[in-house]
C-alpha cells in the first residue's frame, strides 16, 4: 500500500513498538513499511497481532534518522522497536549523528 507522507506525519508499526515521525517526505505517495508490514497512522489503530517479516528485523533505534538513497525521505525514530523501516521493500539507512552545537 502506498501512502502520502508530509513533515509531521507519524507512523506506528503494526507489528512492533516502533514509532516514526516524518521529517522530510517526497512529493508522491510511497510504499513504506515497518518490520515489513504497512504501518498505521494512529496509535489507536494498531492491530495488536502480527509479526515482523523476515529480513525486516534488526530494529529501529530511538533518535536515529532513517533516510532513502535519494535523500527525499527522512523518518525520525521516536520510539524504538524490533522492526526496521523500509520503502518498496528496501531497508532504509541511518543518517550520521548531528554535529554538536557551538553554543546556545
Amino acid at each position, binding site marked *: 500500500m502506498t501512502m502520502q507522507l508530509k*513533515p*509531521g506525519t507519524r507512523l506506528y508499526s503494526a507489528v512492533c513498538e516502533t514509532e516514526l*515521525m*516524518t*521529517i*522530510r517526505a517526497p512529493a508522491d505517495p510511497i510504499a513504506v513499511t515497518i518490520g515489513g508490514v504497512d504501518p498505521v497512522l494512529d496509535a489507536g489503530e494498531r492491530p495488536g497481532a502480527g509479526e515482523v517479516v523476515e529480513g525486516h528485523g534488526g530494529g529501529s*533505534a*530511538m*533518535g536515529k534518522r532513517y533516510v532513502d538513497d535519494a535523500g527525499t525521505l*527522512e523518518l*525520525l525514530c*521516536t520510539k524504538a522497536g524490533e522492526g526496521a523501516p523500509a520503502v518498496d521493500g528496501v531497508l532504509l539507512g541511518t543518517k550520521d*549523528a*548531528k*554535529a*554538536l*552545537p*557551538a*553554543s*546556545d
Partner: protein
Amino acid sequence: MRPADWQPLGPVWARAGATVESGSLWARSGGQWLTDPAVGVPVGVVRSLVELVEFLDLHGAGLADISSASGVGVVAERAACLGLPPAGAVTAGGAGRLLRCRDGWVAVSITRESDIDVIPAWLDVPPTGPDPWPVVERALATRAVAEVRDRAALLGLACGALGERSDDRSPVLGDRRGEAGPRPVAGLVVVNLASLWAGPLAADVLARSGARVITVESTTRPDGARATPEFFEALHGRCESVALPLGTEEGRRRLARLLERADVVIEGSRPRALEQMGIDAVELVERGPRLWVSITAHGRAGDSGMRVGFGDDAAVAGGLVGWVDGEPRFLADAIADPLAGLTAAASVVQLAASGGRWMVDVALARVAAAASAGFAPPEGEAAPPSRRRDPGAPLPLGRDTEAVLADLGIP
C-alpha cells in the same frame, strides 16, 4: 539490579538567613548588564551563586580570586569571552527566544541547521529557509503550550514551557548505589564527557581544587565550544584532552575502560545516547567510578530524560525569568548553565567527602527553579561582563590521548 531510588540531596552549601549584598554583587558581576534593566536583581540567583562560590572556595577552587564580584562574575564569563549583547526576549547568545503561544509562553533554542530542518514536522508549516523565527512565531501564536513542547521533545528540539518545572526545586537528586569511603577532591580522577558550559565548568572547578581532569571528546564530534577558543580555553586550561573515535568499536571499548578507571564521571548526554554506545552508567558506578554526575536539561528519569535543552530554555522551564510589563525576559546569559555547573561541582565535593557510590542527577531546569526567589530594585552602575583573571590555556584535541591511556594501563 535494583531500580533507581532518587532522593533530593540537601545542598550543604545553602546558608539560610545569611545576608547577601545581592544588589551590588549583581551590578558588579556583569549579570545586570546582560539583563533587561527593568527586570531588577534576581536575588535567588545571586544568593545561590554566593553560596556555591563560598562552599567551593572553602575546598580550594579559588573562584573569588579569578572572577569579578567575589566570584559571582562566573555568571557572565561566557558573554565576556564571546562579546555577547544583553538578553531580552532573545537570548544573549542569540539562538533562543521567548515566544507567546495561545495559552502561555515557551522558550525555544534553535542552535543548528538540522533544527531548522525539523520545523515543518514540528509546526506543520512549509520549509522556512535560514531564518525560521517569523514562521515559528506566527505558528506558535495559535498553538497550545503543551502540544508545542511535547512535539518539540519528540523531535529533539530544545523547547521549555515557562514555569513547567517551577515547583521542582530540588537541584540535585542522588541514587546511592553502594559503599565507598570518604575522599578529598584533591587527587580524584575526573573524566568529563560534557561539552559547552555547565559540565566543563564543573570539571574546571574540580581541577582548581586539585582533581585530575581528563576531558574526553569524539574525534568526529568534538565540543562545539571549540569554535569559541577564548571561552573553551578558560574552562579547559587545566585538563588533559583525550579524543576517541566513538563511532567505532575500538573507540567505545577504550572509552568504557577509561570510565572504569575514573573516580568521577561528568556527562551531559541524554541517557539513551550513552546506552546506545553500550555504556551502562548504573552498572559502572557499582564497580568503577564512585560518582556519576549527569547534567541534563530536565533530569535523567523517564520522558524528561529524552528532552534536549540549553541554559536559557531550561531556565525558563524552571520559571527563572524576569518580567517587564507582563512579558518574560531571559536573565543574563544561559543562566542555568553556570548555576548547574557550580552545583554539580559542589555535589561532587559534598559526596566525595561523605562517601558512598552515587548516581547524581543535576537538571538545569530544577537548578533554575531552586534559584527563583523574586527581584529587588537594582543598585549601582552595571559593570560589563569581564573575563577571568586566569585566561586558561589552549587544549589541542586529543593532545594527551596516548599518554593518558598508557598511564591508566588501557591498551
